[in-house]
């Protein structure tokens, strides 16, 4: 059981407000990418966020573009777990492939406010928030293994190279 501070957002948050498109080809370092996380949704997020915090959102979090920086900006800002009523399909895959845990769990974003805390029990797939217990569906062991490896590319590098060489491909969907 771990305790986390939450940042709460609503439905249909798109990738443009999570990480503006105008930065996608210019910003390269983790620090620079993290500095613009949620810039057009919540300008105070970056100054508030602390390592270990989680995001709690409504439905369809991350709709729109396939840009992987919409995940990595949060990862570099210290977020390792995202909870949403639902995720856009591509965003969900990007989370896993980037080594971030996405938890599908409706009902939390209307119950909590930014600054509240919740407890996550990843062993028993439970979240305890505002005195209530929520169960969520665990990832399959093979998908969890991708997260544990730090993402798809490091996992495959371990398998094929025997070490992680730090290469981060641009990715992206046609």
């Amino acid at each position, binding site marked *: 059981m771990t305790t986390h501070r939450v940042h709460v957002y609503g439905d249909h948050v798109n990738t443009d407000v999570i990480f503006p498109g105008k930065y996608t080809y210019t910003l390269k370092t983790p620090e620079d990418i993290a500095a613009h996380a949620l810039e057009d949704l919540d300008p105070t997020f970056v100054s508030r966020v602390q390592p270990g915090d989680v995001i709690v959102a409504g439905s369809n979090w991350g709709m729109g573009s396939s840009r992987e920086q919409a995940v990595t900006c949060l990862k570099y800002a210290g977020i390792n777990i995202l909870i949403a009523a639902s995720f856009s399909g591509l965003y969900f895959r990007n989370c896993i492939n980037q080594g971030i845990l996405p938890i599908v769990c409706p009902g939390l974003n209307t119950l909590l406010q930014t600054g509240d805390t919740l407890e996550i029990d990843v062993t028993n797939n439970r979240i305890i928030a505002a005195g209530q217990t929520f169960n969520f569906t665990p990832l399959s062991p093979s998908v969890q293994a991708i997260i544990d490896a730090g993402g798809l590319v490091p996992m495959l590098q371990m398998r094929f190279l025997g070490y992680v060489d730090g290469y981060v*491909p641009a990715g992206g969907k046609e």
Partner: protein
Amino acid sequence: MNTGYTFVEKALARAAGVESARAGAILDMRPDLIFSHDNTAAIRRIFEAIGATRMSRPERVAITLDHAVPAPTTQHAQNHAEIREWVRLQGIAHFFEVGRGICHQVISEEALILPGETIFGSDSHTPHFGWLGAFGMGVGRTEMAALWATGALWIRVPESMQIELNGHLRPGVTAKDIALKIIGDRTVGGGQYRSIEFSGNTLPTLSLDERAVLPNMMAEFGAMNAYLPPDQAVFDYLEAKRTRDYTPIYPDADAVYADRYELDVASLEAQIALPHQPDHVVNLSEAVGQPVQQAFIGTCTNGRLEDIEAAAQVLRGQRVRCRLIVIPASSQVLLAATQSGAIATLIEAGASISTPGCGPCMGNHMGIPAPNEATISSANRNFKGRMGTADAPIYLASPYVVAASAIKGAITDPAEFL
């Protein structure tokens, strides 16, 4: 909770080798076919970076050259050369050269994917293969590299949306108009991460060429995949070429759908998507008279024989008043349309015919509009800049409407030419 299963629940359980699965489950899938196109060289670089050397199942890999063919620049030619080298190195038999056609059309014609099977492509229109009852999904380049290396990829089984179509389309109204209507009504996010499962008595009345339009355009609906129940017409189409057996999959009658949409197509009018989004859809009558400088018939959405014959039907004995570019979706389509006389009719009407492939669909070449020139297109996307020029409006409609508009140089109802 002993309800039935949707198509996607059954198809993904099969591909993962498990007995059953419900929406929300995460499975490791071994697809029956994976494919890429002109982006193959970029995927190769990721594949090499992860330390892989040999593809795990090269016999289940297909590669087409289609997005910029024949090569318009030295860089494109270099890209194609790298891909040919890769095909040789990996021993890929299902390789389709410049001019064979668009990936989705060619793989369908070659019967490389069959009803009930699963296919992943590094192309967002991979839901296309739902026309023959397969599960098709687009993936990113990193994931395609992983698929080459391991032959497997994880998938979260999506919730499903049922779209029921009933009634007979009126003459001159097509599956394209149905697709535009759905997207217009429910927006580009209406099918987000859903398996779109079509049903209803309209489907068997649609030709095979038309059926492919529906799942193809569900990419613009946000869908993960789309599905039409395959019938004897589909089985017959595949029979001559297929190299393995298959078992079609149908959803159970009591399957659970997260959403439903119903349309009586009998009263549907021709539709048109206005610039710059595929859900800016209105009845064609509301856009009639808008001037266009270019008309384009082709793409994986509407570049098949029936589309070209529809255009020929409208253009017989007419002359175009604006540029008309016609690009058959494959060499087989080009050959059939030549033999049927449709190509001759189009050339006599003033059309320009080009090498089978994507053509100007995504703005690589062969019909990029000048700034402020409007194009009416039979394609699937009209985002700003899609055809290579930002300030060039794109309208999306059926081949009938595109052909009629070419005659007048303005958006036109095809009824007066039919």
